[in-house]
Each structure stands twice: as structure tokens, then as C-alpha cells.
């Protein structure tokens, strides 16, 4: 369901602002401001809102601008839902009482065929003490310049092209080719892994380790591979489900 216009919905948690799929950011801003303007009296009682950006690919600055527009009408935005290529929004929005927001799924109309309603960069990546076990599913190919940041795990059903970046607090699984940059376990989760069907990254980062392929290396793996930290360096091995299971068990026994 792609909407043409900005939609407001009242939910128990407050107002839900659903943005239309409009690639022109200027026109999008205009639509949002006009809608708020025309209905400002109606929402006099609303003080908190959830902004649902759906499938839009917005930059952080764009997102701040949108939040700013809503807040200029006296409505504070408690969180942002959806969006591709976002990062660190959760942090800036946390000051608006996101901590008190209920943990339920706020998206009023879950759509079949769309990514799971996940919050991008929910929680603070710098507080690794409590790792999010949530997983953000990206059902598309990430192209150059696109960036996904999430405090939990990230699964990409598609490729991550050179120039694209995936940053996760937990593991990164790419059901496709990883040609860009993947940073798992940010900032300091050394147990994080990166798995891809074709692991040919520009650069791999796990926790605070960085690895790049050696110069002149043109290997073309045919089978899935896994990258992880072993003895203080990132190593890449063939991925085998059986082996991974076994190792997970061993890791449990060690504890």
C-alpha cells in the first residue's frame, strides 16, 4: 500500500504520522507541512507522535528536518519507524522520551511483502552492555551510498554493493554478495560475525578490527563464507551450517 498523501492515525501511543512514498524530498516536506497546517487545530491534544517513513531512503539530515517540521507544530516525535539508509537517528530522538515509549510494534498497518517494521538504529550503538537481539531485515539490494545502521543484527536479502555500508551492533548476514563495507559488532562485540553468500568486501570490520583484501587479490568465492575474530584478527572461512552449530555448542560449554 503506497500512499499519495501524508496520513495521520491516532493510536494508543499517540499520533502516528505516515509519510507517502515520494522521492522528491522538497515536495515531501511541503506535503507534511501543509497537512500539519490544515489540521493543526484537530491535533491540539496530541503531544507525542511516531513518524513512519515507510520505504523512503532518507539521509539523517532529511530525517531531522522532517522531525523538526512536526515539532514546530508543538508535537514531539518519540520515534521514527522504517526508512532505509538511516543511521543514528535513534540517538537524537532518544531525548524526546523514546525510553518511555512502549515496546509494541507501532506500525498500524503491517504490509505484506514489506520489510518487518523495524526501527532503524533504535537504541544506542555505543552502549554495548545490552545488545539488542532484534534483527533488521533489508529486502533489497543496497547500492553505493546507501547505509543501514542498526543496533541489533542485520539481514540483507540482496547484495551490498561497493560503496554501500552495513553497520550492526550484532551479526550481519547477507543473502547475496557483499562487495561494500560491513561493520558487525560495533562498537566492541568481538563475537559478532559476518556471513555472505559471496564474501568479496571492500573492507570488513568487526568490533574495532578492520581488514581489507590484500592488493591484487581477485578471488571469487563460489560458496558462502563467514568472517569472525580469531586470536585478535579477522579470519574468513568457508561457511558450513553444521560446523557453525557445533562451534556454537562448544562456545556454550566453555562458558
Amino acid at each position, binding site marked *: 500500500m503506497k500512499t499519495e498523501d501524508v496520513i495521520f492515525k491516532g493510536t494508543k501511543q499517540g499520533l502516528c504520522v505516515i509519510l507517502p512514498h515520494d522521492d522528491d524530498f522538497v515536495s515531501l516536506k511541503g506535503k507534511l507541512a501543509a497537512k500539519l497546517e490544515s489540521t493543526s487545530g484537530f491535533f491540539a491534544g496530541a503531544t507525542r507522535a511516531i513518524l513512519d517513513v515507510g520505504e523512503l531512503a532518507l539521509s539523517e539530515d532529511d530525517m531531522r528536518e522532517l522531525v523538526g517540521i512536526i515539532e514546530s507544530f508543538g508535537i514531539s516525535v518519540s520515534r521514527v519507524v522504517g526508512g532505509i539508509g538511516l543511521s543514528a537517528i535513534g540517538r537524537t530522538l532518544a531525548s524526546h522520551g523514546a525510553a518511555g515509549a512502549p515496546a509494541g510494534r507501532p506500525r498500524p498497518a503491517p504490509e505484506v511483502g514489506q520489510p518487518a517494521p523495524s526501527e532503524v538504529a533504535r537504541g544506542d550503538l555505543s552502549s554495548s552492555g545490552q545488545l539488542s537481539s532484534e534483527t533488521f531485515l533489508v529486502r533489497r539490494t543496497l547500492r553505493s551510498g546507501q547505509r543501514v545502521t542498526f543496533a541489533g543484527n542485520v539481514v540483507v536479502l540482496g547484495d551490498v554493493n561497493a560503496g554501500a*555500508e552495513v553497520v550492526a551492533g550484532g551479526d550481519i548476514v547477507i543473502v547475496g554478495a557483499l562487495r561494500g563495507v560491513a561493520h558487525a559488532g560495533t562498537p566492541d562485540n568481538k563475537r559478532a560475525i559476518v556471513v555472505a553468500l559471496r564474501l568479496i568486501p571492500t*573492507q570488513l570490520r568487526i568490533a574495532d578490527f578492520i581488514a581489507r583484501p590484500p592488493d591484487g587479490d581477485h578471488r571469487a568465492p563460489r560458496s558462502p563464507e563467514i568472517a569472525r575474530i580469531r586470536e585478535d584478527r579477522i579470519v574468513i572461512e568457508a561457511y558450513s551450517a553444521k560446523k557453525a552449530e557445533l562451534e556454537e555448542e562448544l562456545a556454550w560449554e566453555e562458558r
Partner: protein
Amino acid sequence: MGGKVIVVTSGKGGVGKTTAVANIGCGLAARGKKVALVDADIGLRNLDIVLGLENRIVYDIVHVIEGKCRLRQALIRDKRLQTLFLLPAAQSKDKEAVRPDQMKELTTSLAGEFDYVMIDCPAGIEHGFKNAIAGAEAAIIVTTPEVSAVRDADRIVGLLEAEGLGEPRLVVNRVRPEMVRRGDMLGIDDVIDILAIDLLGVVPDDESVITSTNKGEPAVLDGVSRAGEAFRRIAARIEGEEVPFMSMEVPSLWLRFKRFIGVAR
């Protein structure tokens, strides 16, 4: 004692700005100069690929400007030349992430440490162009011998003059002598006639540039490449040397033989 900040620009896209920056930069560094190359094409970065340094990027120009890292951390040392450094552009941001005054501050601090600071300007005349020229004190205009490219270059000359960057120097790229001879391509003289600026160099169309660009190894470091030789001469002219312009003719087998035995040069 500050270095020289030079912007490489063209107006039109695809004429070889990035290739020129990489090759001239390498050419100057190969002469022992300390050179910093700045990719100002934020959102569409390429210079890192042409130099083969893409997989070394951790911080970029936007991180520096936002204060997320120090300038030194973002500078990537070239893998071949010890005195060549790259400040990469950000790929997931756009041109508005940087303001001209910030760019000026950045190039000024780079000029304090390097002999040459070369800025790879994005195509167009908008925000990215204004950023790229903000801190420059000299300009190199790259064009190809095509009417559209020359027209855009002419517009750039005017815009640079308005910004106080007078006397830019011209590099005519991808010249194909046989086409010029047939009258199918603008000649160097025609281009100079239209633009009326000093000629810095003429670079022949050379397939080796495409392969070297793909491999991330600038042609200037390849002793055989004719384009590489042209860029070496450009670097020498930037250093103030008087170097004759290269003959655009591909030497015939007979001539090469005569050179080999030493009866011709």
C-alpha cells in the same frame, strides 16, 4: 611556507577530471613533492578507485569537517608513492554536507603541510563546484576537443574569473590526432582560440588510461603509456619547467626503428 592549492574542474562530466587529478598528483609526488589529493565529489566519489585506495578508507572528508576524526586520520597514504596522500569523499552524504568556508579552512590547513593540494571538483556548477573552488588559489580546466565540453569549459572560465580565480590553465584530454587531421575533431588551436587561456598540457586518447583506471594504477606511473608521458610533462610544467608539448602522432614503425638505431629522435 604554504603549499599551492589547485582545483581541477571542467563543468562537463566525463572529460577526465578525476583521471587528471590522479595522474598529475602522482606525477608531482613522483618528483618528490608532498601532494594531497582531495576528492570534493561528495556522494559520487571516484578518486579513491582510480588510485586503487578504496579499501583503505575508514574516515572521509565529511568526518573531518564534522570533527569526528582528525585530518591526519582521514588522509590515506598512497601504496606506491610515499609522499602522496588522499582525502576521500563521503559516499553516503551529499554535497550539502560541506560548506565552502569549511572547505577553505580544510585546504588551508592541508596547504600548511603539503607542497601541492589538488582538489577533484565534481561536474556541474552548483554547490559542489562552489565547495571545490572555495579554497583554491589556482585552477586547471580539463576539456576534451568536443564542442559541448569546450562550451562548458568556457562557462567555467567565466565563473572562476568571477570568484577571483583568474588565469586558469588548460588540459586538453583525449585528443585523437588522426581525427583532428581529418577535420572531424576540434584541434588544440581551435580550443585555445575559443577559451583564450594558457595551455598546460595535451593528453592523447589512450586505451591504457582505461585499463589503468580500472586497475587503480594511474597511467603516469606506467613508463610506456603515452597519456602517462603527457601527464608527466604536465607535472613538470606545474613545477615551472619549460617542457615541449608532446607530438600527438603515434610514431610509425619506421620512425621507431630509426630512433632505435639512433638516426632520428
